[in-house]
């Protein structure tokens, strides 16, 4: 369903991604973990062309886009992008629109669906993320967690083949993380929505991901089921990264692991 070959991204002389290869099946949930600066977010942003890769190819569904020195055509970028939807770390809701209007916007403006139909669909999605009562609230009147749930509804409204989530809980206050994770967990349950999640929530990644990717310095270092990567990491760097996390947790909470 998704096929990524030799994907490379450089910012000037700085190589951020080195020859990434990855195949993702329909309905799979992929968690991408790794230290900051490892290129996980850039990788995700390449998949919907928010960043234009330097080389390689991306195939999502029936659409393939090859990258080389020539800039790909706007039309091709958009047909690939129409297969994806993105949830951002900082929500990026449209502040001048209500929650309902935020969810409707893509349907009305991009997909040219009538306002009535779009409104019905959007209400259904807000219900799905537990915010039916907040449909008329502006983003500023919502908590961070609520905003992110609206953002998830907005992304789902585009009916994407693959939902991309870029650190969806990193900007949230700790007590609000659970609600957002619960929504994502719910989405992962029926195994139809393909998802790629960049996250620092290791327990969550372990729980929901069918496969976990550990990235460092722009490369996929290790990839496997969550038990493989978290339970029996084979690569020294993965071990080191996970050890650091556990040590951190141990120190903070006084756990003995």
């Amino acid at each position, binding site marked *: 369903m998704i096929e990524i070959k030799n994907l490379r991204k450089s910012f000037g002389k700085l190589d951020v991604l080195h020859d990434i290869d990855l195949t993702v099946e329909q309905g799979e949930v992929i968690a991408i973990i790794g230290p900051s600066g490892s290129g996980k977010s850039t990788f995700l942003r390449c998949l919907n062309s928010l960043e234009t890769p330097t080389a390689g190819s991306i195939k999502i569904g029936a659409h393939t886009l090859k990258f080389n020195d020539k800039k790909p055509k706007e039309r091709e970028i958009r047909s690939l992008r129409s297969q994806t939807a993105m949830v951002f770390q900082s929500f990026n809701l*449209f502040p001048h629109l209500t929650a309902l209007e935020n969810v409707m916007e893509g349907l009305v403006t991009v997909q040219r669906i009538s306002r009535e139909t779009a409104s019905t669909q959007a209400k259904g999605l807000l219900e799905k993320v537990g915010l039916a009562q907040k449909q008329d609230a502006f*983003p*500023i009147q919502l908590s961070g967690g609520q905003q992110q749930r609206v953002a998830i509804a907005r992304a789902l409204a*585009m009916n994407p083949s693959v939902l991309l989530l870029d650190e969806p809980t990193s900007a949230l206050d700790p007590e609000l993380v659970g609600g957002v994770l619960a929504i994502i967990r719910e989405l992962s349950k029926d195994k139809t929505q393909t998802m790629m999640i960049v996250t620092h929530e290791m327990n969550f990644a372990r729980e929901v991901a069918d496969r976990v990717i550990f990235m460092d310095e722009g490369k996929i270092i290790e990839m496997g089921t969550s038990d493989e990567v978290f339970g029996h990491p084979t690569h020294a760097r993965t071990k080191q990264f996970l050890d650091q996390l556990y040590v951190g947790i141990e120190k903070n909470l006084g756990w003995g692991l």
Partner: protein
Amino acid sequence: MMNLLSTIQWEQLFDWQLAKEAAPYILKNGLWNTMWISVVTMTLGLLVALVVAIARMSPYRLLRYPARVYISIIRGTPLLVQLFILYFGLPVIGITLEPITVAIIGLTASVGGYASETIRGAILSIPRGQWEAATSLNMSYRQTMRRVILPQATRVALPSLMNSFLSLVKDTSLLTVITVPEMLYYAKIVGGRSYDYMTVYLIVALYYWVICTVLNALQERLEKHYNRFTNT
């Protein structure tokens, strides 16, 4: 001090008798022109400004440079001089325009130049995440501008643009030098007839002040409307 005040001949400064006749005359003949010229040139000027602002931010030099030159000319030369050049210069190259046409062109160009920088600044103040969110929904540049960026930029630009509008209303008084019959023009007619300029200028000053005060109130209401979705 008291002595000084008592020596002033107040009737030379302001003649009530004359004012009773002059005030309605100026208002009746001049106000309409002042107002419609202001509103029309502001509207046209904003359209010009939007196009110029977008051209100024374009990745294409062919759009960017002309926009920069235009802004530079408008901001770098006095409006009065621009009006003179249009009014006296164009006939030299064979284009003779009605004073009112010169007025519309001159003021529109002026608003277009100043407001374009306001609009550009407002557009640039909208966070990158808004562009990215719109792009990720697969909106085109135009759709993103129209549906996401401009509605937010309007709120940012509003105080400055209202300022421009107030300046414009007052700048219409310059049109009197190219014989456009607006408020100051009629004031000068009365002044010339009665040899009492001070009275009519004070009346005109009061009129401009009242118009600007009303517009100021309008601005506050507009700002309230736009601020409903923000904390600030």
